[in-house]
Each structure stands twice: as C-alpha cells, then as structure tokens.
C-alpha cells in the first residue's frame, strides 16, 4: 500500500462526490429530517433523549453503507476497477481510499446531524459532544467498510441495494434502539454482542446519558474500529484481479 496512491484515490472519490450535489444534499439533509421527525413525534416525552443519540450512530452507518456499495459496484461494472487493477494501484489503496473519502464526508454529516439534534431538536447530551461526532464518524467508516465488502457479493445494482436490508436491518433491530439490549432474549442478546452496530449505539447512548462515559465509549470505539479493519481486509479479498 502507498500513502500517495491512497490519498490520490480518496481525492478522486471526493471529486466524484462533489460532482453530485444532490447526493451531498441527501447525505446531509436526510439524517436531520429523520431526527427532526422523531423529535417531533416524541415531543413532550423523554423518549427522544433515549433514542436520539442512538440514531446519530445508526444514520451515518446506513447511509454510508448504501452509498459505498453502489459506488464500488459502479466501479466494477464500468470497467474502471479492471483497469485500475492493471496499474501500480494496490487493492489496499483502493479500499483505504474509499474509506478515507467517505470518512471525510462522514465528518461533515456527523457535525451537521449532531448540531441539528442538539440545537434544533434540544437533545440533551451529558457527555462530550465532540466524542459523539467521533463515534458517528467511526460508524460511517464502518458502514463504508461493510458496503465495500457487500458490494463484492453483488453482481447488479439491484442486489447491492438489497444487501442494505439484509445486512443493516438485523443490526438495526438488535442494536438496542427498539428494545434495550439487556431486555432481549438471551440468544438475541448474544447475537447482538457480535454485531458492530450494537457497540455504536452503546457508545452513543453512554455519551449522551452519562458524564463520565468517555472510557466505556472509547472501548466501544475500539470494537467498531476492529470490525472496520476486518471488513476492509475481507473486502480487499473480494477485489480479485483475475476474474472468470
């Protein structure tokens, strides 16, 4: 892997993103609209303070998963990936380039979503808002890594889009957003322990509800980073230079 080629590829992916203002708009606005909607639905109750932080972890994950899996599938079907694999560019440069580019987009998305939640929707955050942004970005990069991995198994864009409910929805149901993880049946609780989104929601909830939550959020963050690295490594295995 080369830092120069990774940065070059990240720059190229960001330039592609910049050429598509509507996608940027959707990346930034949709999480805010959904969070705002929920804040309104639960207006006057304490529910939003419980699920709001979790959503800040879920949205970047879902959005980046989808964007990345479609973007890399396009790279495969357009022939550019085949061409790149005949150049000095390594698979790791491609994976890291995508992760870096969408990670940068995620920083912007997380800043906007956290600011909107706190200042417009009145979300109470007991812990550090900065750490909340860090966890949101880690979630987004995790979504990117899993999206890269999933796109390796998709042959068409229809399949790529179908991977979203297949990979994301089970994690969404078990991450503690709907029923706290401790109240889940023991098998499901065990299952939720091995799903990365659970750690994202744990970290977000801890940061929002308790003042001295940095240590436990840091542990969750490490788990998320671990999942991300494993997904990137597996994903680079799906980028095969020689194809049938």
């Amino acid at each position, binding site marked *: 892997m080369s830092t120069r080629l990774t940065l*070059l590829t990240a720059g*190229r992916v960001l330039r592609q993103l910049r*050429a598509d203002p509507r996608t940027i708009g959707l990346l930034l606005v949709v999480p805010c609209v959904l969070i705002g909607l929920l804040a309104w639905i639960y207006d006057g109750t304490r529910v939003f303070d419980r699920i709001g932080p979790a959503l800040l972890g879920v949205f970047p994950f879902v959005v980046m998963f989808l964007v990345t899996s479609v973007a890399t599938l396009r790279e495969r079907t357009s*022939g550019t990936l085949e*061409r790149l694999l*005949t150049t*000095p*560019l390594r698979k790791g440069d491609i994976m890291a380039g995508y992760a870096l580019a969408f990670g940068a987009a995620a920083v912007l998305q997380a800043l906007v979503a956290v600011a909107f939640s706190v200042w417009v929707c009145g979300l109470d955050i007991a812990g550090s808002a900065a750490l909340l942004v860090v966890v949101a970005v880690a979630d987004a990069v995790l979504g990117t890594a899993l999206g890269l991995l999933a796109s390796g198994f998709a042959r068409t864009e229809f399949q790529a889009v179908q991977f979203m409910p297949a990979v994301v929805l089970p994690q969404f149901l078990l991450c503690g957003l709907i029923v706290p993880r401790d109240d889940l049946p023991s098998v499901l609780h065990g299952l939720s322990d091995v799903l990365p989104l659970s750690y994202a929601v744990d970290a977000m909830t801890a940061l929002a509800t308790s003042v001295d939550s940095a240590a436990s959020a840091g542990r969750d963050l490490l788990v998320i980073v671990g999942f991300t690295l494993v997904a990137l490594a597996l994903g680079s295995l799906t980028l095969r230079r*020689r*194809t049938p």
Partner: protein
Amino acid sequence: MSTAGAAPEPAIVVDHLRVVRGGREVLPDLSLRVPAGQVVGLLGPSGSGKSTLIRAVVGVQEVAAGSVTVLGHPAGSSPLRHLVGYVTQSPSVYDDLTVSENLRYFAGVAGAGPAAASAALDEVDLVDHVGQRAGALSGGQRSRLSLACALVGDPQVLVLDEPTVGLDPILRRDLWALFARLAGQGRTLLVSSHVMDEATRCDRLLLLREGRVLGDETPAELLERTGAADADDAFLRLVESAAGSGRGSGS
C-alpha cells in the same frame, strides 16, 4: 540483455493458453507471439475470443492452463503494472469527473506528472474538452479519453480492445496514425478489431476464430497466401479452407 544479431525478443508470448468462461472453452489451446515495436491487429468476429485473449495479456483473466508472458514477465505481475497500458472495450473512465480530472488521476496512479496528462490529451485531440465531464462527451470522445488515460503511463506495451468502434472514418484514420506513431517510438501495440478492413493499417495480423489462430502474418502475406482481394475475403477463404480440412468440427 540485448541480443544483437538474433531475432528481437517478442513482446508478448502466449503458450498453450486455455481459458474457460461460463462453462464454455473460449480459448482451447492458443499459442502465439507478438513482436515488439509493431502494431499487431487482433482480428476476428465477435465471440472469437479476442477480448478474452486481451484480458489474459493484461492479467485480469482467470486462466485454466498455459502461460502468457509480457516483456519477459508473467502477465499481470507487478513489474508489468508500469509497462502495460490497457484500454478496455467500453471506455473505462469516470463519467462524473471532467476530462482533466480523469487524466490527472490515471497519470497519478501511473506515477506520471501533469505534463504527461497534457501530452496524452494532445495525442488524442481532446484539448478543447478539458473541462467537460466525461459523461457528457460523445462516444468517440469518451473512447479517446479512455485511450489517453492509458497513454499517460507511458506504457511499453499498449493493449487495446476494439478502440475504433463507433468512430467516424476520419477519427479512425487519425487513431491508426497515432498507433503507428506510438509503435515508431518502439512501443508494442496489440489492437483488436472486428472490422476486417482495418487489417491494412496493421504491421502484422493475428486472425482469430473460435479461439484458434487462423492466420499470423503481415497483411501483404495474408492477401498473397489466400489470393484474396481484401482482408474480409481472405478471412472467408481461410474459414472455408479450415472447414474443408477439418470436417465435422465446424457447423
């Protein structure tokens, strides 16, 4: 390393290559040589295995048996990544990037500077479209951009899959003139086409049909051997004589 006096080393050596795609034997047992410093036309109808051979030469094709060697290295090995340029059949460029953004990225990947990017742009005559998005270019312009993105790396071997499809006669002529110029600089070009009349533009021809080599000679030798008036006719005669000698295999 140079062997003065002896015949020059071929740029591409294919030995008993066997490729199976989707359960079908596309290349049953192919052996051929591509001499260095020439424009070699890979001609044959669609489905004859041209693209498969080209993919094997650039090292992205899964191979069942046999070997492909380019400039003395196994096809697709890392020393070749700086030496071989690949232009895919459908233009592989980023439609959402501008012409110059595409070129600068591929130049950067190949380790070349912005000067190489503008030189390549000049070669394919796209200077007037620098700021345009690739997706907004015409088909011919996009395929020339795709070619330029391979030229930026200053490759010794250039492998092009049907680069002239959909181009008007003037652009096709210009492109073949460019290929001749590149070969004149000592580069090797393997250019596939299903348009037989492009045969006369090549230094040498490889005629492919159903994964087998029907002819491997200069255009003049081909016409002389078959007694045909043009390449199309020569190809027909070769197919007929092959069917006559190997009855039962053809349909």
